[in-house]
């Protein structure tokens, strides 16, 4: 048996397989189908200050080896999250990482502050910065180094829990954004969120996503996720969580070799909510086969030609 334990910041996780925000609800929906207690961590759906209705349908569509989504951050809002979800998590053995979204720095801060007020076994916060900043003319937080650093700095002051900034791939230089988040005091970075994409029904000439653009996820984006993780790994010293198109233990090892200390499984959960657990078992075998004692010895060890 390989040692699957990993550490991010000061938090120990029993294995590096997490489930990604927005692809596992609030974590409790599929307990009938999946052994969620086995997961390294559950990252819950983005929570905002107030409840959000989300976007009109159609919200999702399949694409070659992937899918587009534009859910519009539909969520119950932080107050209901605290009231209804956090108590459920008390009984869970699985560490919970709360994902937070907002449209101003203040909004992110308020969500975090309100959550810090109550006792909970949330181990950390993942900050979704692929959100339009209303104070910056709708430009996304995650595309700008200054916006990212400022937001990180403010959030850092509000919590001692793990602070993970989740980076967007829709930028010229993702490593620079990573550096900004590191400067702001992030404990770790996760990457990638979805790529901006589009899909059109040529019969009725309508976009297959109500508002036109959606976020591309799934195996199609795995090469992009790997390149992003590898670039950020070269630029920062804090641990990375790899995301994008993971469906197997081999995919996990690719991300680890590229520089990830842990990973999040996203779209694949829709096919099989128990896939995270299967990957953990598969990873154990794979590491044994390759005579690798533990995951950390592997991080960032990909060899490039020179």
């Amino acid at each position: 048996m390989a040692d699957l334990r990993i550490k991010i910041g000061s938090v120990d996780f029993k294995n590096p397989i997490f489930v990604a925000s927005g692809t596992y609800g609030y974590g409790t929906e599929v307990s009938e189908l999946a052994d969620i207690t086995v997961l390294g961590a559950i990252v819950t759906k983005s929570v905002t200050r107030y409840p959000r209705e989300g976007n009109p349908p159609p919200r999702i569509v399949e694409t070659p080896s992937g899918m587009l989504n534009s859910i519009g951050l539909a969520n119950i809002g932080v107050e209901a999250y605290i009231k209804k979800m956090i108590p459920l998590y008390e009984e869970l053995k699985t560490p919970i990482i709360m994902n937070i979204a907002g449209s101003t720095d203040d909004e992110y801060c308020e969500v975090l502050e309100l959550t810090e007020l109550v006792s909970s076994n949330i181990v950390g916060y993942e900050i979704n910065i692929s959100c339009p900043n209303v104070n910056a003319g709708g430009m996304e937080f995650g595309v700008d180094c200054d916006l990212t650093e400022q937001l990180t700095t403010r959030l850092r002051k509000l919590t001692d829990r793990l602070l993970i900034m989740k980076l967007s791939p829709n930028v010229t230089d993702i490593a620079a954004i990573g550096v900004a988040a590191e400067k702001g005091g992030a404990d770790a970075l996760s990457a990638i969120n979805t790529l901006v994409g589009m899909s059109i029904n040529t019969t009725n000439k309508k976009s297959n996503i109500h508002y036109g653009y959606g976020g591309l996820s799934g195996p199609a984006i795995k090469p992009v996720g790997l390149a992003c993780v590898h670039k950020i790994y070269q630029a920062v010293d804090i641990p990375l969580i790899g995301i994008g198109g993971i469906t197997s233990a081999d995919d996990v090892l690719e991300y680890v070799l590229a520089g990830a200390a842990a990973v999040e499984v996203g779209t694949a959960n829709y096919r099989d909510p128990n896939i995270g657990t299967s990957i953990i078992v598969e990873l154990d075998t794979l590491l044994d086969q390759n005579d690798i004692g533990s995951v950390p010895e592997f991080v960032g060890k990909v060899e490039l030609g020179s």
Partner: protein
Amino acid sequence: MKIEIATVMENKLIASNLWKMKMTAPDVAEQYKGAGQFIQILVQSSWESPLRRPMSIAAVDGDEIAIIYKVFGRMTQILTELKAGTALDILGPLGNTFRWDDNEFTAVLVGGGVGLAPVLNMYGECTAAGQEAVLVLGARTSVEHFIDHKPQNNVFLATDDGTTGIAGTVIPAIVKSLENTSKPEILACGPEPMLKAVQEFAAAHQIPAQISVESYMGCGVGICQGCVVKRVNGNVAEHSYHEKYSLVCIDGPVYQSKDVIIG
């Protein structure tokens, strides 16, 4: 709700572009609650198509469940190629059911196209339970029907081109079927234009109606928030976290006609 490896028992063309597949699926059959519920099929293991495909349950018989499907794109095409004996990865049973009131009423079951399965299923359940029911099925043309127009047996067919049964949409056929019906309640499933027409008809004639709606599904189990339908009123359901949209995979697929906005 379970992921189960079912075994295809039979898979055949029953009308123009319409197929019926039977499979043994003991776990899904055991948990099955009634017509309206559906399964999510993993048609092939390749990740080229990451998502499962939703299909209503058309019948349950012991360990065996059936689906009735139309070929739309690649996954339904692949379904037609599966032979008896093939293993098929399914997730179910999912969603709610047509509601069955104990009061005396006549179930006016209206179906068409990809919406045949739950309606035929409900018809079977009504018949088995001695519940009065009439069946109204619509199609574009006669070759798309696979049962006979028998008004005397309360089976009414409609075709757009008049080649079988009553000419026109399902509405004239519904009108016809209502002639000898007391306390009708419409239970419908079918393509959007049909559901819209049924909705309007039911509202105009103040007939209670339940409709089973379709939407593009990511997960089928409430974790993607992809499958929403717009609500008329603000009866918040737990699952959709909000007032305006409802999750078809958990709150539905069956709704009171007056509660949802189609298309």
